[in-house]
């Protein structure tokens, strides 16, 4: 430890202790490194020694009680001011704790399993979708690698269904775990027991664990659920499970592509899985084995027990924690940065509030000092007030933070956006979060108390007792620094919020290549005996077309057309596909024709050898050429390109693939799309319900509105989760900034009342004084804005790296933010400056 740090630490102890042990203690500290934990211990011991050093404990307690009473009485005299202090701290603590409960799992918290760094996910880098075949895993389990504890966690589609709770059917997603799963991944169980080897059998009732969230949400955390039986209603019949355990709150899921489980059951081992079954097993490496060694060992064993068609078998191990947290880390970073900025705003506002308080108390503090109060006695008064603010603010903040954490947890999207899955790590508001929130709250209050405390203990007493309203340069200089800092932080927040917000908006409003407004999906489920034919679909479409208000009817989905070849190109990219478009497709989705034309009715009926391509297809297939008139081949039939349409997005998180459309005669599949205003839909539904039984006996129809969410359920969850949180955090920070800037400017101008009075008394015109005040504050504000814009240059790469929208322009955000904040500063200066120049100078000078 460095000598200056050792010297600082020794100063924490009482004076007699320092005299007796200080030198040797410093020598000891300088001779070794000090961890955070040891530093905390030293603070604890220093506090203990200080308590021991107090000779008159009862007297000291009485003094502190007096200080507490004094502070509470001053709060009662100015309840709004006291409430503002507490609310400011509470706001910062609530935001930080609530957001930290979400971000902690992705950024800092280790996995809740012992020796979790030894857990890895096994993948096959040469296969698609990077998964081992289920038969590979069976072979590995039977090989000499049993010590790796191959464990699987997978969705059990056949078991998922509706659970009847309190007479209501609730959808439940059922996962299964392989035998010995908890031996490898020691999932914490809140109650109940592990699955035994006898449980992994096909008998009913199936033993099951309830997921924590499902248990708390649907069963009100009722421990009596243990031993209860639940019936799961599935499409293939009912299944009965008996609850034998409840998973701990630390457990969410391990499946990257699906929502977290509601129920977990033991898997029935399959000894001979099919060739198209895949698995993502987890392993626990034996002690002392590195990842590279394990990859080589598993790969070589796999080569022996399940050799590949050509070449060697490779496996890739990915640390389980990395797999779990990688998808949520960007969002967690952005949220945490926003929360910390809000906390910073709270610190700035609290500092300014406490400075104004210390100015108001200057005369009183000076009187105390003049009557013999020591500096430590005065400092204690400030510290007691800080402790009371911190206690009230932290308690209120943690209560609000807990509620915020609950809201965040309920809004975490269950489905991933591309590879980014936020539901693999639970949102936990536990002792760790409470501890962090409390420490941050205490640090903020102590830091905010530092300036007024420093000033109060070094007050020019004589001047203060005379009643001067200005108390030296420190509060004034500190206030100017605070004003510039507040504007710098506000600039960063506003620009970042606009940057993120515009990115999300652009992501959700990117051109789709079709319209979704007033579109409805008509799903037709045929009766048990009669399958749905293309003719049925045509007849249903005719019924729909005849209804008043219906603009267009067409296919909901497109069918693949077959093998695509482009003459002159040896290999067709996998990104280019051919689809069959049937009558009504372009009309119902309002697909824009960019060049040439769309198919006519004859071409649909005859399946003419013509094609329409989208612009992505044209650019990829014939770069730099005019596509109309060129040829492409679908199923060995040559088609002439007659038109180009806008590309249609099938994913928001990926660029659209190029599609070539060829005309087809019949609607296929069980879904139609209809374009009609909402008001016409009940009549459309009634008409279809009346006519459909004559077309398809016992058929069921369902009309559902087509929305962005229904079309892109796997792409919009994160954006819709991020947008309100970022907007609320940004708005909160800006509200704090606005209030802070206004208060600070008012305070700075109030401090100059005497100077203003002298200027006016000497013949200065009000408007000139007003202009001078506004310009001075605008200059400070502009300086802060400049610092903020410079800081944005540092934050922008961080934002770009963590946003899931890859590109967003920041220039507009910078200009809009700078202008908006400059207007705020000028407005904040203009009002109090006008008030200050309207006063009677004689009255002010007489009072001074």
């Amino acid at each position, binding site marked *: 430890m460095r000598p200056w740090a050792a010297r600082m630490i020794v100063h924490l102890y009482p004076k007699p*202790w320092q005299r*007796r*042990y200080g*030198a*040797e*203690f*410093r*020598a*000891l*500290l300088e*001779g*070794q490194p*000090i961890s955070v*934990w*040891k530093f905390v*211990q*030293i*603070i*604890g*011991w*220093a506090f*203990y*020694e200080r308590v021991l050093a107090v000779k008159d404990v009862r007297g000291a307690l009485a003094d502190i009680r007096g200080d507490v009473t004094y502070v509470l009485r001053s709060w009662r005299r100015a309840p709004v001011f006291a409430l503002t202090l507490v609310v400011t701290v509470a706001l910062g603590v609530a935001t930080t704790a609530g957001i930290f409960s979400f971000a902690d799992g992705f950024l800092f918290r280790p996995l809740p*399993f*012992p*020796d979790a760094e030894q857990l890895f996910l096994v993948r096959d880098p040469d296969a698609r979708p990077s998964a081992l075949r289920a038969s590979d895993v069976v072979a590995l389990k039977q090989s000499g690698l*049993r*010590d790796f*504890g191959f464990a699987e966690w997978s969705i059990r589609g056949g078991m998922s269904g509706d659970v009847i709770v309190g007479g209501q059917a609730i959808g439940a997603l059922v996962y299964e775990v392989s035998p*010995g799963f*908890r*031996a*490898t991944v*020691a999932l914490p169980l809140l109650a109940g027991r*592990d699955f035994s080897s006898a449980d992994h059998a096909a008998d009913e009732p199936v033993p099951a664990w309830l997921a924590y969230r499902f248990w708390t949400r649907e069963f009100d955390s009722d421990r009596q659920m243990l031993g209860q039986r639940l019936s799961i209603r599935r499409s293939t019949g009912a299944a009965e499970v008996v609850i034998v355990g409840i998973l701990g709150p630390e457990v969410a899921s391990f499946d990257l592509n699906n929502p977290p489980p509601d129920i977990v059951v033991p898997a029935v081992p399959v000894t001979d899985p099919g060739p198209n079954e895949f698995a993502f097993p987890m392993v*626990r490496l034996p002690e002392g084995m590195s990842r590279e060694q394990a990859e080589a060992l598993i790969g070589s064993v796999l080569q022996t027990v399940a050799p590949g068609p050509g070449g060697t078998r490779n496996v890739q191990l990915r640390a389980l924690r990395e797999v779990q947290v990688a998808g949520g880390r960007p969002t967690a970073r952005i949220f945490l940065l926003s929360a910390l900025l809000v906390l910073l705003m709270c610190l700035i506002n609290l500092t300014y509030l406490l400075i104004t308080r210390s100015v108001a108390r200057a005369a009183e503090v000076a009187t105390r000092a003049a009557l013999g109060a020591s500096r430590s006695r005065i400092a204690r008064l400030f510290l007691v007030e800080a402790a009371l603010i911190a206690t009230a603010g932290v308690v209120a903040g943690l209560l609000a933070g807990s509620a915020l954490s609950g809201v965040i947890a309920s809004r975490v999207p269950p489905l991933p956006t591309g590879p980014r899955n936020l539901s693999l790590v639970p949102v936990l508001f536990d002792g760790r979060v409470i501890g962090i929130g409390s420490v941050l709250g205490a640090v903020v209050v102590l830091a905010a108390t530092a300036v007024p405390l420093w000033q109060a203990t070094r007050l020019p007493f004589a001047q203060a007792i005379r009643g001067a309203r200005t108390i030296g340069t420190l509060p004034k200089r500190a206030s100017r620094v605070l004003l510039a800092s507040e504007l710098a932080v506000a600039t960063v927040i506003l620009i970042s919020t606009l940057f993120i917000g515009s990115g999300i908006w652009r992501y959700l409003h990117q051109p789709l290549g079709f319209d979704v407004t007033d579109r409805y999906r008509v799903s037709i489920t045929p009766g048990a005996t009669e399958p749905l034919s293309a003719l049925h679909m045509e007849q249903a479409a005719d019924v729909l077309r005849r209804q008043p208000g219906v603009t267009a009817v067409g296919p909901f989905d497109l069918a693949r057309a077959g093998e695509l070849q482009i003459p002159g190109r040896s290999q067709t990219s996998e990104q280019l596909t051919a689809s069959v478009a049937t009558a009504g497709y372009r009309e119902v989705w309002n697909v824009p024709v960019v060049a040439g034309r769309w198919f006519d009715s004859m071409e649909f009926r005859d399946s003419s050898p013509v094609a329409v391509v989208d612009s992505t297809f044209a650019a990829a297939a014939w770069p730099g050429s005019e596509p109309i008139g060129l040829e492409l081949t679908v199923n060995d039939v040559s088609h002439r390109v007659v038109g180009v349409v806008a590309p249609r997005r099938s994913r928001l998180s990926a660029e659209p693939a190029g599609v070539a459309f060829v005309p087809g005669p019949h609607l296929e599949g069980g879904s139609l799309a209809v374009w009609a205003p909402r008001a016409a839909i009940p009549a459309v539904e009634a008409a279809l319900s009346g006519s459909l039984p004559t077309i398809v006996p016992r058929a069921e129809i369902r009309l559902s509105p087509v929305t962005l969410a229904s079309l892109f359920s796997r792409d919009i969850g994160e954006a819709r989760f991020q947008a309100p949180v970022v907007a609320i955090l940004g708005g909160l920070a800006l509200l704090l900034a606005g209030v802070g800037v206004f208060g600070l400017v008012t305070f700075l101008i109030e401090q100059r009342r005497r100077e203003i009075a002298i200027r006016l008394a000497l013949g200065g015109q009000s408007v000139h004084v007003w202009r001078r005040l506004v310009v001075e504050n605008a200059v400070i504000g502009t300086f802060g804005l400049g610092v903020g814009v410079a800081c944005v240059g540092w934050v922008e790469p961080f934002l770009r790296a963590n946003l899931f929208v890859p590109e967003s322009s920041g220039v507009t955000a910078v200009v809009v933010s700078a202008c908006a904040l400059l207007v705020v500063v000028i407005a904040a200066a203009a009002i109090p400056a006008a008030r200050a120049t309207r006063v009677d100078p004689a009255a002010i000078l007489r009072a001074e």
Partner: protein
Amino acid sequence: MPRTTHRVAVSAQSRHAGRYSDPPLLVLASLADGPKHGHAMLEDIAKLSGARLGPGTLYGAIARLERDGLIAPLAPDERRRPYRLTTEGRRVLAAQLQTLKNLAQVGLRRLAI
């Protein structure tokens, strides 16, 4: 041998098994074979018990033992000051170790070790 959850859970705690941490007693035991200064005491205690005391904890124990008259300071060697056991300290240490010895014997007998 199949890996079990029980073994996994215990392994995390077992790292701390076998340590003994009662700072004043450890300081007394460290000074039993002669005077030592703070740094030497930390090293000796780490060897004796497996527990590495922090500087704050060590000086908390030293201050307490000196107040109780169980140890006494010697003349400083530059900035380091050695401490020695007092007669009372030696007596208290012997009594405490005897109690621990009896406790250990009974405990081990009951565990049939």
